[in-house]
Structures are given as structure tokens and as C-alpha cells.
């Protein structure tokens, strides 16, 4: 069915929401990557079958005017730690860690009798939280961009339309000129969510101003930062919102073709987007004469093939062109010379997902959220040693403390907070002293970190910061395209030095060398990947210099993470001289006479710890 015009769209919304309201009960099974891995699709199938068997099942395509129970595969609810998740409306119960064998109880007790299954509900500090929105993890969040994620069927355009989807598109086409759309976006001060924080409205206006008859809209879904999955969740959970944002961008800038570049590691996102594009074409929301007006727009999907650097604009475009994803020198900017050499709007997924809301609710509404210079909300992937890992959305300017302790529930296993890595390998680490820092573009920049795409990896007291720096450097080094000298040769040398330090072979002089390299790489690299490659090292050197010094001077790793810096000794008082340790030692580093205390030869010891595990008397200690 093609939606003929704006009036028709409004009728569709009425029709679909009527149908939706006839679903007296709705079961939303999380079908994000996390819960799918936990078996949520089997749970979905089983629930659906059980409800079908009872004759209560209602189709998700909202075509029939029938009452009953809707069972849907929703997008990511964000609370991945507790998956698989099942939400039941209208009660808004959230069942966590659901297993296949719980299905019957859910159907019988909740769906048929309307009773909660307390056993499946989230509990924290002895308290049971039946309602999803009341769970501390959700309570402090402000879900605007993610409002539909977990609440609608991710594979149904009808549900998106029922919730008012594509009305922003209709509004701009009916009421606004392209210039006006650019102005509203500019006024909203929406800044790019991909990391740089460049004003979106400015970018769009630049493209609109270009005279070229052919222009493009490109959506960057190459979310490669390790520890970040916001964009994946949006693409999987609310794909139509991304499409709508892109179509509006096309209208606003005079482009008639769009590309979504999704990294190959996100097969589910690709599948959902493909389905969404097909549906949008079917409804005439993509294609020619959209909503009966003289505006054509279509969207293609390009899959990455495994290269982090393709998140950089010019590399991403090179990759769509079928070339090696190597960034090129700028200027010219992508807004002048982008895809196929034409002016191009390039924004990331979350940025596009913000657009429909700004259109519908206005730029002043958007600016009322968060600080002046970074308005709106931001989705973060909260991971690492935090109790509640998952996907969250908070107003910009929320403090780290609120995110980690209120939403994240604090550090796991009662350990102490040590640091949080923000913005992935291009970001920096923040410490105790930054806990009350508001999370927004400019505040973070001041302390040498960046929001990046929004990964927040929490680290506890057991984490060795030198090792963390080495880990990130290893990542960037692996992902460097190899084009410019500072990034290609410099990161390799930095990694070598860091490897030397964690192996106990570093010197104080190495720290100076690291700083010298870091300064040069940041100031001379060709693209953003190189320019930020040294940030993790710079920030750890700044905030955890002592830890580095311990590694290079005392040859000790305070957290015991760096194996080469461990020292094992045999406590002579506890040793009974059984010789078990000597027998398991793979390098023959332990010697001694039976029934007398054994000794470890430090020169030979490879610090594998086999002896300690073998010792029946716990006589082997790490000092």
C-alpha cells in the first residue's frame, strides 16, 4: 500500500493506533543482539506459539481489527546485563533473565490472569521492581532517541507509524522549505553524535548551499569503538527513525539518494534496516513522489568489511566507492566533495535519529534539555566493571557519578571505582576527580577526553591503567590505515614502549619518549584516528603517572595484572617440601630437597603461577 499524501498518512496513523489499542496485552521480547545471544528468539517463538494455540494471537502488521494479545520482537531495551528481557504491557512489567521454561508461567499467570510473576522481576538491594520505568537503571534515564527501542516491534513500520512515525517528514514537506529545515536544525544546536560534535545544522546548510544537482546523504553506522553499541541498538530497535531522519536530511539539502554504511559485525542491524527500507518503499515513503509531492529519495545499504578507520568520513566514503578505506586530506570537506565527488551530508545514526523529534517538538524544546552548548540527550553504552551494564540515554550534562552509580548501580563485586574510559580508543580516561564532571562535548574536551561515540567502560581498582593504555594502543595500531607516518610508525613505537613497560623492561626515559611521540602524533596525523590515537596514553600518563612509575622503577604492577611483573616466592614457614611445585613448573625454576623448603629461581621463573595453584599448603605467595 502506498501512502498517497499527508492526509493519508494521518489516516494510517489513526488506523494503526486503533489496531494497536485492540491489543489488550502486548508482550515485547527483546531481540537486540545481546538478548538474542541469550536465547530470546526461542522465547519469542514459544510465547507466540502458546498464545496462538489459545487463539489469542494478533498479527503485528496491524491489518486486522481483532482483539487479543500482541507478541513482538522489540529492539534493545538497553538492560543487557539482565537479558533476555520480556516486557508486558499495559502493566509495564519487566521480566529479566527469562528462560524458555518460564514461558508457560508468563502466559498463564500474567497474560491470562493479569498477575505478576515476582520471581522474574528485577531485584536490587532486597527490593523488587515490578515496573520497568521504576527500576533505578531506567529511572534516571531520559529516553528520547531510544523511546521506541524496546517499546515497539522493530520490524513493523505500522507500529512506527502508529506512534506518529514519519509525521516529522510529512510536516517538513508540507510546512517547511529546505532552508527552514536547516534553520530549525541549526537553532536546535544539535551536534554530531559520532564524536566530533560538529553542528549538524551548519553541515546541512553547507550542503544545501552547494550548487551541484546531485547530492547525497550518508549515514555512518560504522560504530567501531570497542565498547560502544548505541548505534547498533538504534538501527536494530528503531530503524525507521533513522530512515526518517535521513529522508528529512535529503529534503533539507536537496539530495535524492542516501547510503547507510553499517559495519559487518552488525548482521542483525543490516537485516532490520533492509526490512525497514523495503517497508518504507512499499508504503511510498521511499521512492519517487514521496507523500504525493515532487520529492524523490531512496536509501541503499553498504556493509563494511572490518576496518575501524572507516568510521572516519572520507575513509567511509572511499569504502562505499569500493576502495581501501584510507582517509584523504582535507579540504575539500565532505560537504563539498563527498560521495562520488558530490556534496554529501554525513551524520551518524544517533544524529539522524534525533532529527524527527526536533522537527515535531521544536528546536526550543530540544535546547531545553541539557546545557546550552550541548543540548539534547546522549546515548551511552555503559560497560565494564559496573553492576548494570547496558544501553542508556541521559540528558547531556548528566554527571559521571549519576551515570555510574545511580544508573549503573556502582562497581561490581563491591570493588572501588578507579577510572572510566570514555569515547573508546580516541577518548581518554577519567578518574575519581571527574565524577562530578558534566558529560557534554565541551566539559570533556577541557579535561582532555571526548564523548566520542559514547562508549563508557568502567574500570575497578583491579584494573592496571598501563595495561589499559597498552590495550588501546594495540587497538589503534591494528586499525591504523597505515597512510601517514605519525600514525603508522608512531603508534607502533608507542605500543612497543608500552609492551616493554608491562613486561618490566621499561625505564623512566620511556615515559618521556611516550610523551614526545604522543605530542607529535596528535599534532601531525592526517585524520582523526591518528590525531586521537595517543589520548588514552596521554590521559593515563596524566592521571596515573605513579602507576607507570611503579612499573618502570619498582618493576611492580600494583594491581597484579601485568604477569611479567609478578614475583612468586615460597613462604618457608608454610612449605612442607612436598615438591609438587617443582614438578608442575614448566621451566624447572623450582628446586629444593624433599621435606625442606623449596626455592624459586627468579631468573628462570616465567610467572605462570602454575606452582601456586599446585601447592596444597598455599605456601606460594605473590609479592
Amino acid at each position: 500500500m502506498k501512502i498517497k499524501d499527508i492526509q493519508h498518512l494521518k489516516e494510517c496513523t489513526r488506523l494503526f493506533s486503533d489496531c494497536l489499542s485492540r491489543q489488550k496485552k502486548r508482550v515485547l521480547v527483546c531481540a537486540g543482539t545481546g538478548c538474542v545471544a541469550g536465547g530470546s528468539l526461542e522465547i519469542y517463538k514459544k510465547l507466540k506459539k502458546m498464545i496462538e494455540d489459545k487463539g489469542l494471537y494478533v498479527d503485528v502488521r496491524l491489518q486486522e481489527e481483532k482483539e487479543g494479545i500482541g507478541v513482538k520482537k522489540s529492539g534493545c531495551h538497553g538492560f543487557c546485563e539482565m537479558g533476555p528481557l520480556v516486557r508486558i504491557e499495559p502493566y509495564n512489567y519487566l521480566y529479566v533473565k527469562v528462560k524458555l521454561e518460564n514461558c508457560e508461567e508468563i502466559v498463564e499467570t500474567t497474560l491470562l490472569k493479569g498477575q505478576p510473576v515476582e520471581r522474574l522481576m528485577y531485584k536490587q538491594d532486597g527490593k523488587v521492581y515490578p515496573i520497568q520505568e521504576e527500576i533505578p537503571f531506567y529511572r534516571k534515564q531520559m529516553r528520547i532517541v531510544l523511546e521506541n527501542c524496546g517499546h515497539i516491534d522493530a520490524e513493523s513500520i505500522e507500529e512506527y507509524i502508529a506512534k506518529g512515525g514519519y509525521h516529522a517528514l510529512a510536516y517538513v514537506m508540507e510546512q517547511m522549505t529546505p532552508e527552514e529545515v536547516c534553520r530549525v536544525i541549526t537553532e536546535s544546536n544539535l551536534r554530531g553524535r559520532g564524536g566530533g560534535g560538529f553542528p549538524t545544522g551548519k553541515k546541512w546548510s553547507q550542503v544545501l548551499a552547494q550548487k551541484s544537482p546531485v547530492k547525497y546523504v550518508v549515514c555512518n553506522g560504522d560504530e567501531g569503538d570497542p565498547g560502544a553499541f548505541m548505534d547498533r541498538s538504534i538501527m536494530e530497535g528503531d530503524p525507521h527513525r533513522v530512515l526518517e531522519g535521513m529522508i528529512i536530511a535529503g529534503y533539507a539539502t536537496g539530495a535524492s539518494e542516501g547510503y547507510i554504511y553499517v559495519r559487518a559485525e552488525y548482521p542483525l542491524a543490516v537485516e532490520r534496516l533492509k526490512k525497514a527500507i523495503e517497508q518504507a518503499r512499499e508504503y511510498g515513503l521511499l521512492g519517487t513522489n514521496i507523500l504525493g509531492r515532487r520529492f524523490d529519495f531512496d536509501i541503499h545499504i553498504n556493509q563494511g568489511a572490518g576496518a575501524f578507520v572507516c568510521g572516519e568520513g572520507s575513509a567511509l566514503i572511499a569504502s562505499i566507492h569500493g576502495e581501501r578505506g584510507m582517509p584523504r586530506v582535507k579540504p575539500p570537506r565532505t560537504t563539498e566533495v563527498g560521495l562520488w565527488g558530490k556534496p554529501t551530508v554525513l551524520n551518524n545514526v544517533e544524529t539522524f535519529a534525533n532529527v524527527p523529534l526536533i522537527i515535531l517538538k521544536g528546536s526550543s524544546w530540544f535546547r531545553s534539555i541539557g546545557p546550552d552548548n550541548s543540548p539534547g540527550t546522549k546515548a551511552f553504552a555503559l560497560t565494564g566493571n559496573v553492576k548494570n551494564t547496558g544501553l542508556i540515554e541521559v540528558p547531556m550534562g548528566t554527571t559521571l557519578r549519576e551515570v555510574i552509580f545511580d544508573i549503573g548501580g556502582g562497581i561490581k563485586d563491591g570493588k572501588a571505582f578507579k577510572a572510566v574510559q570514555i569515547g573508546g580508543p580516541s577518548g581518554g580516561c577519567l578518574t575519581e576527580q571527574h565524577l562530578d564532571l558534566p558529560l557534554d562535548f565541551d566539559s570533556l574536551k577541557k579535561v582532555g577526553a571526548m564523548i566520542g561515540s559514547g562508549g563508557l567502560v568502567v574500570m575497578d581498582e583491579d584494573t592496571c591503567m598501563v595495561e589499559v593504555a597498552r590495550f588501546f594502543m594495540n587497538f589503534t595500531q591494528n586499525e591504523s590505515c597505515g597512510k601517514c607516518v605519525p600514525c603508522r610508525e608512531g603508534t607502533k613505537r608507542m605500543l612497543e614502549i608500552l609492551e616493554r613497560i608491562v613486561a618490566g623492561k621499561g625505564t623512566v626515559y620511556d615515559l618521556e619518549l611516550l610523551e614526545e611521540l604522543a605530542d607529535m602524533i596528535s599534532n601531525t596525523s592526517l585524520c582523526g584516528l591518528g590525531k586521537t590515537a595517543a589520548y588514552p596514553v596521554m590521559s593515563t600518563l596524566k592521571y596515573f603517572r605513579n602507576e607507570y612509575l611503579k612499573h618502570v622503577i619498582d618493576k611492580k604492577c600494583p594491581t597484579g595484572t601485568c604477569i611479567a611483573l609478578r614475583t612468586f616466592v615460597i613462604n618457608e614457614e608454610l612449605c612442607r617440601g612436598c615438591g609438587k611445585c617443582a614438578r608442575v613448573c614448566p621451566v624447572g625454576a623450582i628446586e629444593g630437597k624433599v621435606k625442606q623448603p623449596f626455592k624459586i629461581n627468579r631468573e628462570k621463573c616465567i610467572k605462570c603461577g602454575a606452582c601456586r595453584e599446585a601447592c596444597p599448603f598455599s605456601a606460594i605467595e605473590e609479592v
Partner: protein
Amino acid sequence: MNTTIIYGKVDQILNRYGNKKSALIAVLQEVQKEYHYLPQEVLSYIGDKMGISRARIFGVATFYENFSLEPKGKYVIKICDGTACHVKKSIPILNALRKELGLNENKRTTDDMMFTVETVSCLGACGLAPVITINDKVYPKMTPEAAIRLVKEIREANRLED
């Protein structure tokens, strides 16, 4: 290698993309799906058909992590070493699997062509860290022991099939 190249299949893939130079990456992905790696002959064939120099195709095929110019095992195990998985101890899982299968950094595929073990930078399943995937199925919250158990189960299942 023993793979017999059926160029008809490659032609089908090329036809689907209309020999457009920009489709190179998509074409390589489909070819890899077909052969589980990118055989040299096929790359040369594609280059000639698409009018792209062989050096260029080789450059693209070696740039992206997902492409392999060597045959892979029947089961491709990817250990996620993204930040979240790393801080939740993904490397011990990698080491355990390598030890179990007699592999190392340079030798990634077992001689019987059953298993390939590699790392991947981030699968975006950070909430379930540490994760591994076996032929794209995600296994959450792994431990070295659980990973080895999975390998043993696969071996056993294959043995029974034979």
C-alpha cells in the same frame, strides 16, 4: 587449495551488481560467502571483469579484516577483544582455545580445516562480555572452560555425523 572454482557462480554475483566498480566490496563479501575465502584466481577474474587492476583488488582484499585470502576452517571462532570484553578477561579464553586446538597467532586454522580462531575488535555485545562467536552465533559471558566445552561439543557432533 582443493576448492574447484565455478566461475558461473562468480558471474552470477557480478551480474547482480552490474560490474559496478563501487560494488567491489559487496562482491568480495559474496564471493567469500561462497568459498569461505577469496581464492587468488577468483580475485584476478573479478578484476578483469570489473576493470579494476589486480593490484588494487589485492589492496582492497588485504585492507579489510573480514576478507581472508586463505581458506578458513568449517567453524570460525571469533573472540571479542573489545574494551568491555578485554577488561572482563577475554584473552585467557583466546589462549585456552589456541592451546586446545594447537593454534597460535600465526597459525589460525587447524590442519583438519575444522576450526579457525581469530579475534575481533568489538561485536557490540558488550553487555554480555566476554563473548565469542562461532560461525556468527553469539555465545555470551564466556569462560575458558566453557569455550573449550563448546569446541569439544562441536567435535563430538561432527564425529557422530561421520
